[in-house]
């Protein structure tokens, strides 16, 4: 620090400094603010560029035509993305149905039931799942899951063929395996956030339930789950956002067939997978390329919407509850 005799006694302000450091401050402030503004500009810019590049496809097929027509035919240059959208929805739904109960159950177990010494170890280990990159899970999916699950899938398909969307020959790569991999990928996220939400339940509500003579599970039903509902839903939606955008693992195991499959174990396609898969051949075909970019735009908008809602719910779940439960003044 410079050896200035700058003792601050009543009235003497920090503004009385050498001009040089004043400039230093101004530069820092300016640079950092510009940076922050730059980020915003960047996002806006990319959004615009994406739209511009995708426009040819929207012009040709209309925004709704593109998104909801059921015909993705590369050879005839017709691009209706419904099979992609449906495929994205199916795999995400499977992922949520499998992944969320497992994740929330794990979160409840770790926070409420696990013996203290194993709590930290357990939660750390579950987070390790997040360390597997998408391509590694895809590799494992292709060479381990698909062959090993096929007999079981066929059995399920035969035994439960009375259910809608079940029954018929089982394809190797299919919606279900895609959903399963997505479930594995969303478990660490949903568990971590659910754990955070559940641990913010105030002890006083749990004690009130216990004091009424509730068993531990009854206490959870009475005091923990209702309180955490919003936050856990938000966690699930964040998982959903992740599932929607996941590309590599899905494209490796879903079969990349531009059709709406008839049953759970059929091949399919998703918005993200189509981009990864067809980009090579689309490089020289402007219409095809525009269609893929349009798919990317639809994907972008979808994830934005889901994540925005998710964040709202999680914030309300973790912070908002404290505000609502304070009593009106007596």
């Amino acid at each position, binding site marked *: *620090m*410079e050896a200035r005799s700058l003792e*601050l006694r009543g009235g003497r302000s920090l503004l009385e400094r050498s001009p040089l*450091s*004043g400039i*230093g*401050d101004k*530069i*820092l*402030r300016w640079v*950092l603010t510009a940076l*922050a*503004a730059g*980020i*915003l500009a960047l*996002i806006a*810019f990319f959004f615009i560029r994406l739209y511009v590049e995708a426009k040819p496809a929207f012009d040709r097929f209309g925004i709704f035509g593109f998104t909801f027509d059921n015909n993705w035919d590369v050879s005839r240059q017709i691009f209706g993305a419904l099979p992609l959208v449906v495929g994205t929805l199916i795999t995400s739904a499977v992922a949520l149905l499998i992944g969320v*109960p497992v*994740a929330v*159950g*794990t979160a*409840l*177990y770790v926070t*409420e*039931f696990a013996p203290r010494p194993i709590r930290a170890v357990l939660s750390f280990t*579950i987070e*390790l*799942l997040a*360390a*597997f*990159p*998408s*391509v*590694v899970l*895809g*590799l*494992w999916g292709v*060479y*381990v899951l698909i062959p090993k699950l096929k007999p079981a899938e066929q059995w399920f398909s035969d035994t439960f063929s009375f259910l809608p969307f079940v029954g018929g020959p089982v394809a190797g790569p299919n919606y279900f395996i895609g959903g399963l991999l997505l479930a*594995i990928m969303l478990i660490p996220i949903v568990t971590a956030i659910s754990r955070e939400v559940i641990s913010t339940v105030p002890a006083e509500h749990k004690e009130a339930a216990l004091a009424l003579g509730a*068993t*531990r*599970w009854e206490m959870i039903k009475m005091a923990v789950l209702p309180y955490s509902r919003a936050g856990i839903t938000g966690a699930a939606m*964040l998982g959903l*956002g992740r599932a*929607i*955008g996941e*590309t*590599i693992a899905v494209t*490796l195991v879903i079969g990349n067939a531009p059709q709406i499959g008839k049953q759970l174990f059929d091949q399919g396609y998703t918005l993200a997978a189509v*981009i*990864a898969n067809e*980009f090579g051949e689309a490089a020289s075909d402007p219409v095809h390329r525009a269609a893929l*970019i349009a798919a*990317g735009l639809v*994907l*972008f908008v979808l994830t*934005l919407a889901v*994540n*925005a809602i998710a964040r709202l719910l999680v914030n309300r779940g973790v912070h908002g509850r404290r505000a609502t439960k304070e009593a009106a003044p007596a």
Partner: protein
Amino acid sequence: MTAMPVVSARRRRSDLVARGLLATAAIVALIPLVLVLFYLVKKGAGALSGTFFSSDPTGAFLGNQGGVKSAILGTIELVALATAIAVPLGVGVALYLTEYGRDKPFAKVVRYFVDVMTGVPSIVFGLFIYITLVLTGVSGTGFAGWKGSVALALLMLPVVTRASEVVLLLVPESLREAALALGAPRWRVVARVVLPTALPGIVTGTLLAVARAAGETAPLLFTSAIVNGTNFNLNERTNSLPIQIFNDITQPNNQLVERAWGAALTLVLMILLLTLVARLVSRRSRLT
């Protein structure tokens, strides 16, 4: 003589069943972890060898396929460049938010959009860069390593910013005030007091972002693309582990599939190492 109320068997049973189910959920969550690691080691360990690490992929149709040297080096290069871009920018934005922006409306918007960025699928980032840098042929080339790095940097940016902001907020206000009261200009306080205190937390956040970026395939598909030879010229196509693995998986060639497993094992080990180091660093932080 008085009697005791008791808990009905039905309720006791529900409690036990619930406990069982929840414990099962935890076990189910762990099963994929175990299985993936098991197969990685089982199928990948055999591929690891001297040649694996020291030779480039040959790209030949038949015969010797070579190792993954260029992929490993490529990943290191691409991620290093991405880190060099993302960290100054990310920490800079975080500094803006904690030192100047605070609760101002503009800062809230920035914070919100940084959060938005964490939810963007990585393939969309790849598309952004493809449109703006590759198609337009910036710096005279189509696909280039550095363009892949930019895509990765976009991915890392929100992670670094968020982690840094959290840590910077933990630096006690009293520390800043003490330094300011001694007459130090703000930029000095930031450089000499705030950043050093927050450093371990920032390093942790960075390492976690690096671990994430190292495993990403999608953003690189149409930015840095794939190539066989090692190169140190990031202005050309550059290989990387995830891309190499992705490429090898679908080839009908056993050697390649085995190489893919070996490469996958290597990649996972790298990422695990980074994650562990990140945790150790965060333990040594005085703030977290």
